């Protein structure tokens, strides 16, 4: 693994974490207010996804026209196109957990910056859930 690839990953991670904090996606209360369409709805986080997609929608197209990534031999992009029960079932299960607490994996990681025990409970369980999914596959 080259230093360039590692530094690129670190830099992209920092930008991503900054984006999660600036957008307040890292705040579970904000996420739950977005998901609570029937309550006192806060549509802000739709603009987080909208802003992100405005960039990736154009940039991914340009980047994937290139023969290879700058620091690698090939793009590691999923090729499957089929929709199966695992995809739908997994999305349902994820949604229940997301709606229960208001944290998805990125914000859960970034929330460590706020130094709360609650993040640790959630993250420990999240890693256990990921390991369980791997074992049961």
């Amino acid at each position, binding site marked *: 693994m080259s230093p360039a690839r590692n530094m690129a990953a670190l830099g992209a*991670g920092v930008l991503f*974490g900054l984006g999660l904090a600036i957008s307040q*996606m890292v*705040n579970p209360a904000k996420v739950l207010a977005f998901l609570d369409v029937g*309550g006192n709805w806060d549509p802000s986080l739709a603009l987080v996804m909208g802003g992100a997609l405005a960039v990736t929608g154009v940039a991914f197209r340009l980047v994937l026209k290139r023969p290879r990534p700058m*620091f690698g031999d090939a793009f590691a992009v999923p090729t499957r196109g089929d929709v199966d029960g*695992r995809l739908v079932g997994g999305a349902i299960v994820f949604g229940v957990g997301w709606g229960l607490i208001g944290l998805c994996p*990125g914000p859960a990681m970034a929330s460590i910056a706020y130094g709360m025990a609650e993040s640790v409970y959630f993250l420990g369980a999240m890693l256990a*859930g*990921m390991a369980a999914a791997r074992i049961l596959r």
Partner: protein
Amino acid sequence: MENFTPLSALAGGVLIGAAASILLWLNGRIAGISGIVGGLLAPVRDDTGWRALFVLGLILGAVLYRTMGGPLQTIEIETSPILLIAGGLLVGFGTRMGGGCTSGHGVCGLARLSPRSLVATVVFMLSAGVTVAVVRHLLGTTG
């Protein structure tokens, strides 16, 4: 809608999109957090360092925001350990079973017009919305 924060939401979203684009451009990787973290749980030679550094960066980015005096200095989160653990288990299990989360399917997959990511994103959004509706309005615990 008194808590609507369109500018910071858009700005943060643009940064997230830029981060995902940079990771694809430089390293050829999809910035799906559940996939990146999941890969750390079953380490493959020469495929671990970048994952760990990306996750470290995620945390550093939020730390940087706080030290620079960003307005969001505290977060509000559920306090019941049992609910936190249940939620964590569901999020971890579901994202690996479904092959992605908000970032992998939502931000990266939709940008590639992947039908799998479109279905997954619609389903987890609906599932999360229904869960909040049930918890808040049917069971009436908060808000």
